[in-house]
Every structure is written in C-alpha cells, then in structure tokens.
C-alpha cells in the first residue's frame, strides 16, 4: 500500500499527489455514481443537491453527519495503523463486533460502578476485546506466515457466528426472543452531545452525536503522536516499509506486526462506544453494519494520515446522513446508493489509485514547458 509518493506517482509534486490525484479519483467515483442514478431514471443534480442539504443543511443534520463520521474515524484509523506496518487488516468488522462484546460486558455486568469509572472501563473493554480479536491473526501472520488478509476475513465470519450464538442463547434479554441484550443502566451510557452542551448552557439541536466523538478525535491525535513522534511508531513504520532493513536495524518485524494489529484492533473495537454505548444502549446483532469495511475506504482516501482520515470520515459521514435524507425525498434512490458510492471510492481511490498519473504528469510537464 503506497501511501507516500513512491512507485508510479514518483516525481509528481506533493500537492498533486496529496490533493489533485485523490480529487480526480473521487470525481471519477462520483461521475459513475451519477451515471447509475441516471440509469434508474432520477436526476443526479437533484440527488446531489438533496444529499448536501441532507448532510449539512440544518443543525440536526450536521449532528448526524458527525455521529456517522465518528464510526468512520475509528475504523479508518484502525486500517491506517495496520497499513503503516504493511498489513492489510480486513478484519475491522469483526474486531469492532467483538469490541462491542467487551464494552457490553462492562456495561451490563459492572454497572455497580459509578459513571466516572464505568466509562473508562467500557473503553478498556472495547479496546481490549477488539485487540484480542486482532491478536490471533497477527500472531499467525507473524510467527506462522498465514496471510493476514485471509485470516482476518475468516475471523470476521467467526466473530459473526460467536456473536449470533451469544446474543441468541446467552445474553438475550430475559423473556424476549429478540437477539439483543437488555438495556444498559442509565449511568452506563455515554451522554449525547446536545445534553452535555445543554448542561453548559449551549443549545444545539438533538442528534445521536455523543461524547465518543471527542474520544475519536483524541484517538486521532494519539495515533499521530504515536506514529510519527515515538520510537515505537518509527519501529512500526520501518518494519512496514522494509522488513529486511528493520531486521538489520535491530527491529523485530514479527513483533511490530503484533503491535500494529493490536493497536488496530483496539481502535476498531472503540467503534462500539459510539454506536452502542452512545445510541443503542444495548448489544444488538450486526451493529457494525459494514463500518469496518468502510474504514478501508476512509484510510485510503485519507492517505493513512489522521487529518486525512478525519476529512474522509466527514465525507463518508455526510454521504451516510445525506443518503438517508435523500432516500426520504427521492424514494427511487435508496440508502444502498451510498454503498455503491463507497464501493466506487474504494475502487478509484484504492485499486485505481494511479490511473490518472500518466495524464497528470503529461499536463504538468506541458505547462512547465518541459
């Protein structure tokens, strides 16, 4: 995964690699999405107008956009940290799912703790379980050579089976057939942003945006410091850039694989804080709803950098929220359209990352008279 401008994009100026190429890729993805909208007989311009209004047009919409963005920040960071170590963690979905289990166990069974203790305990629970679920594929990759892409895919399915079993047979709400746990106690929930700000005298519209948003931003800062300003982060990136060089420098690549995946899994696990502890207030089936996979798109768009990831998360959060409004206003376009756009963004920003490089190079050379 080339995040810096080596390989096909080598020699292009920084602004072209970081700004122009992603913009062109995004445009291509949107153009094809527009064609699909045309194909089902709707007006793409109207759809775009609706989408932007639905995502940013009013206060509540912005709250929802940020709420969705929170999920993307966690899973996007998770994918990015693994990328920097040269690993492709497709298991964000499963790690977030199992992370939700760790968080729910705290909220359900340690709810004798006061609010001030249960929140950090839940964060630890989510991170720990997510990390543990990433540890096994990491260990297998590091010491047994099992390809991490395949093992993390398998672990997603195993996680789904484990959670279905637990929710149906073990943790289900007493006297209910629904595959969901009982509700968390009132003090085992994260305050919503409008309540928290309301208590401080600032009035904003009600939305599911909650305090985990701040935790997500903090995680971005921590990942940035860890990655680029600590020795541990340097070791991790070195092992990712060149395992033989790392080994020569006294860094053990297998150990870095474990570190990267454990951090990655912990970040993915934190997604459950926003979705469950913030909004649903119970453990439900398949709450991850594809956010783990979407994290790959976010990390690719954000070029593996926390700032880029926040921006990409805002974009995807806006797509989710705008897409929801869009499906209300234009019934022909369902929320699945967002999945289409997501797939196209991964295709163009990820797999076809360098498609426009020859064209951009030609234009730049001509304009510089070369």
């Amino acid at each position: 995964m080339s995040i810096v401008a080596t390989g096909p994009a080598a020699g292009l100026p920084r602004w072209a690699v970081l700004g122009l190429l992603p913009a062109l890729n995004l445009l291509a993805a949107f153009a094809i999405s527009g064609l699909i909208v045309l194909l089902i007989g709707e007006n793409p311009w109207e759809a775009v107008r609706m989408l932007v209004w639905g995502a940013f047009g009013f206060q509540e919409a912005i709250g929802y956009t940020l709420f969705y963005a929170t999920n993307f920040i966690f899973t996007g960071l998770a994918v990015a940290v693994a990328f920097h170590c040269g690993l492709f963690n497709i298991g964000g979905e499963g790690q977030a799912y199992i992370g939700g289990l760790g968080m729910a166990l705290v909220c359900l069974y340690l709810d004798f703790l006061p609010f001030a203790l249960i929140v950090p305990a839940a964060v630890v629970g989510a991170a720990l379980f997510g990390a543990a679920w990433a540890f096994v594929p990491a260990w297998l990759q590091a010491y047994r050579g099992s390809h991490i892409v395949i093992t993390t895919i398998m672990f997603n399915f195993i996680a789904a089976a484990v959670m279905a079993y637990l929710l149906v047979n073990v943790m289900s709400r007493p006297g209910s057939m629904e595959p969901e746990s009982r509700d968390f106690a009132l003090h085992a929930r994260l305050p919503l942003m409008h309540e928290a700000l309301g208590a401080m005298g600032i009035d904003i519209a009600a939305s599911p945006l909650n305090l985990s948003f701040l935790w997500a931003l903090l995680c971005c800062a921590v990942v940035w410091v860890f990655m680029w300003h600590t020795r541990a982060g340097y070791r991790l990136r070195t092992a990712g850039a060149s395992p033989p060089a790392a080994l020569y420098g006294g860094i053990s690549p297998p150990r870095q694989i474990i570190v990267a995946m454990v951090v990655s899994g912990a970040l993915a696990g934190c997604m459950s804080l926003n979705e469950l502890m913030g909004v649903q207030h119970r453990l439900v089936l398949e709450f991850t709803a594809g956010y783990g996979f979407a994290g790959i798109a976010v990390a690719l768009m954000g070029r593996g950098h926390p700032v880029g990831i926040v921006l990409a998360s805002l974009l995807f959060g806006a797509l989710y929220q705008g897409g929801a409004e869009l499906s209300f206003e234009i019934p022909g376009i369902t929320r699945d359209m967002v999945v289409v756009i997501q797939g196209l963004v991964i295709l163009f920003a990820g797999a076809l990352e360098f498609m426009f490089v020859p064209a951009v190079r030609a234009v730049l050379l001509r304009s510089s008279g070369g």
Partner: protein
Amino acid sequence: MELLTLLALVLDSTLRLSAPLILAALAGLFSERSGIIDIGLEGKMLGAAFAAATAATFTGSPWAGLAAGIGASVLLALVHGYACITHRGNQVVSGLALNILVSGVTAVLGIAWFAQGGRTPQLPGEARFLPLEWPGAAPLRDVPGVGTLYSELLSGHNLMVYLAFLAVPTVAWVLYRTRFGLRLRAAGENPQSVETAGISIIALRYRALLCTGVACGMAGTYLSLAQSASFINDMTAGKGYIALAALIFGKWRPYPAMLACLLFGFLDATAIRLQGVDLPGVGEVPVQFVQALPYVLTVVLLAGFIGRAIPPKALGVPYVKER
C-alpha cells in the same frame, strides 16, 4: 432404513449446496494460479445472480439468464483485471471494492426496476434450471440401498449441479495437461521466466480472469435460477468467501478444492438438519458453531497445524515488465 434415508437426504443437499461453491472455487483457482488474488468471488457471484434473474425475468429463458450472469461476472472480472493487471493496483483492495460495489448496485437496480424491496419477481419453472429426472429413477426409488442412492443422489439434480462436478476434471485437465494451463501455473509462480519465453503475462492473466468470470457467472446463476427462483438481496451470504476458503483448503488444486467444497457443503447441510435436535451425549449443537466451522478449519490449516497451504509464489505481486 430410516438412517439410510436420512443420510441420502443429507448427502443430496450436500451436493446441491456444494455445487455453487465448486464453481466459485474453480473460478478463484484460475485467477489465483495465474497470480491474481481474488477476494471478489462474492461480488462476481452476486452480480451474476442478479443479472441472471433479471434476464430470465424479461426473456423467460434460463439460457438467456445464464448468458447474462456469465456476462456480468466476466465484466467484473475484467474491471478487476484492469485495476490489477493494467494499473497494477492492489488486488485485495480491488476485489473488496467490487464486492461492496456489487452489493450496492444490485440493491439499487433491483429496487428501481422491480420495486419489490430488492427482490426480482418469482420466476416460473420454465425460466429456471429444474431438476432432471434420470430414467428409471421413479420405479427404483423404493428399492432399498442402491435404488435410494440412484434416485436421490444421482438423479433429480438440475443441470448446473452436473456441470459443476463435470467442471472439476475439465479444469484439472486444462490446468495440468494443456499449454495454457502450464503457462498459467508458471505465471503464478515465476512470471519473469514466462515472459522470457516470449509469452505475454498481461494477456495470459487477462485470459485467466476471463475463465474466472465464466465459472463465477455460472456459480451466481445457480443461486438465482436453480437453487432459488428469484434474486434476493445479498443472497450469496458469504458463499464467495467460503469458496475462497475451500480453494485455500484445497491448496489451490482442483480435486482437493472440490473435496473441501463438499466438506463445507456437508457442514451446511448438517447445520440445517441439526437445528433444534438433541444429540445423545452432546445435547443441542449450536447452529452457529457448525456454520463457523469452515472458517475455523481454514484458519487452522493456514496456521500450518494440519498440513501446509502454500500459495502460488507470485500471488498478489503486480507484474512489472522489465525494460
């Protein structure tokens, strides 16, 4: 007698459940033996299932459906090739992108065209692949033993099931006994040496992906025209990934991959049978446990605890022609 009938029934559904897995695993085999990772089997199957159901709805012919299914799957395989071979993009990212894209596109188009919440309309019998009754199956049904086996296991499947099992020796022959197969395997192990012999790796890998597209198209068509009578949202439900697991479990070889598909199909069939049944001494086996078993087994295999699965050497490495 009771036990024999039960066994025949389970084996019968094993064959039916493993047929699409076999086709998809063989599809993956072409791609991966040529050096291109294909985690997009799921998406190609889903796209094919939708295209097949749509074409069969409008034309009333399963053959038109099959053609459309194969067409859609080949198109997706070519997009994968364009990203991975021509632009040397990341093969995992491309496969994943196509999976997500297809799951969205089929839902959007299905709702827009048929307005049934993503389903396609129920197909009549003549627009599907129906079970073929072998000669003498009906009178032999009551003969214990051989008769049951003949009428339940061999007879009474649809054409696609037989095609799937015929495809295994065919693919094995192509892979091990033809020039194309030899070059394909070499491309996955040491592309430079193949290119030295004057053979274009790019053309070779594109051809491998065409084969992948055709086989995956058949797998997808099977789901919507043979196993069910319509397309349902996300009807592949992980079958593409199970097929990939089976391919790895079979160590990227046709016959072992088929056996792995049969094993996974058998697990699926027993999971359905075991629902709510108390086994003596064990109690009720959770369905989820049996469902997760293929994935667990594959991880254990990959970990090298039961044999070793060694992938083609050049798998996942974009090919750069030397200048």
